[in-house]
């Protein structure tokens, strides 16, 4: 009798464990799903729209399709501390047709401290955390901006580097 109860108890435990694992797997899928149908993973901090409420008066009239690219980002992002979000203000304005991607490296060490993921046109990242915790201080860094066409990923475009001063206040 005791053996039968024990067996029933084990069965229940296994069922609970399977349910927990299924729940965990479901949550994993939920948090890691791609946000679009392309091969490019759009970063978690990417938002739709523009950083400016009204950017219409500041549009470069020479911009035309994929032949030119407008890039906006903060040259002096500030972080309250090494684990806080900072004012990156990266934007791929609506007038562009190409996707962009931003990677930030510290000049002194070469460490990558931020990677934006793909940013489609008419999307921006106002604030985000660095991938590496930095101590209080000022850091010279470079933002490497690369461009790509999601329809023709083999096409190579010019790229741009932006010098940054990253400030961590605490």
């Amino acid at each position, binding site marked *: 009798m005791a053996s039968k109860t024990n067996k029933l108890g084990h069965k229940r*435990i296994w069922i609970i*464990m399977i349910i927990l694992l299924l729940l965990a797997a479901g949550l994993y899928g939920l948090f890691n799903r791609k946000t679009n149908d392309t091969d490019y993973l759009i970063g978690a901090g990417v938002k739709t729209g523009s950083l400016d409420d009204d950017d219409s008066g500041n549009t470069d009239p*020479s911009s035309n399709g994929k032949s030119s*690219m*407008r890039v906006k*980002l*903060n*040259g002096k992002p500030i972080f309250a501390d090494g684990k806080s979000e900072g*004012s990156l203000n990266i934007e791929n304005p609506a007038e562009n047709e190409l996707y962009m991607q931003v990677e930030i490296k510290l000049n002194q060490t070469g460490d990558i401290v931020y990677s934006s993921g793909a940013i489609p046109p008419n999307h921006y990242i106002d604030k985000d955390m660095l991938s590496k915790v930095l101590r209080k201080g000022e850091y010279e860094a470079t933002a490497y901006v690369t461009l790509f066409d999601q329809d023709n990923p083999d096409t190579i475009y010019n790229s741009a580097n932006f010098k940054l001063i990253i400030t961590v206040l605490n």
Partner: protein
Amino acid sequence: MKKTICIIVASVLVFGLSISAFAETTGDIDVTGHIGTSGDPTIDPDADPDAPDSDYDLTFSTSVHWWVTQITYPNIVNGTASGPDSSVSNKIVNNSAADIDVSLVSFTGDSVAQSIASNLTLYLTGNLAADSMGTTNIAGDYTGPLAYTAPLAADSAWTYGFSGQYTAGSVNTSYTPAYVMTLGFEF
């Protein structure tokens, strides 16, 4: 019984760790920070950090747009050729609130494009960057000077160009070399 309790505790721990790990990887914890100093009451602790005139806002050409087609056929062999001069215009627009320095970080033959080994003399021209770039090879990287140019003023445009001529090499068909470059920007 002890074994059972151990299994349940281990399962709950694994589950809990999994949840916290997923939350961390997605950055789903919405944290907003405020910066202020207790010693300076004039600083609004609810205001976001601000760095005036520190936003880059630039428009630049996405490719060199220089697809040189050789029109002298059949061959250019080891001598100065009367091949075509070719030039293109590219543009940088600085909509930032501050002046920026522009540099040429790299200038590289696009390996995807059809490129046959030949020498090509290139000159970077423009009203702000009239210095010669020196000589580069069709399939190689630019090795000339990469000095900073004059600052590109805020709210202004800078049109620059490349021009060049075949000087030597062995080419027996038309080809369309292309270049990609990396521009550097600095306040």
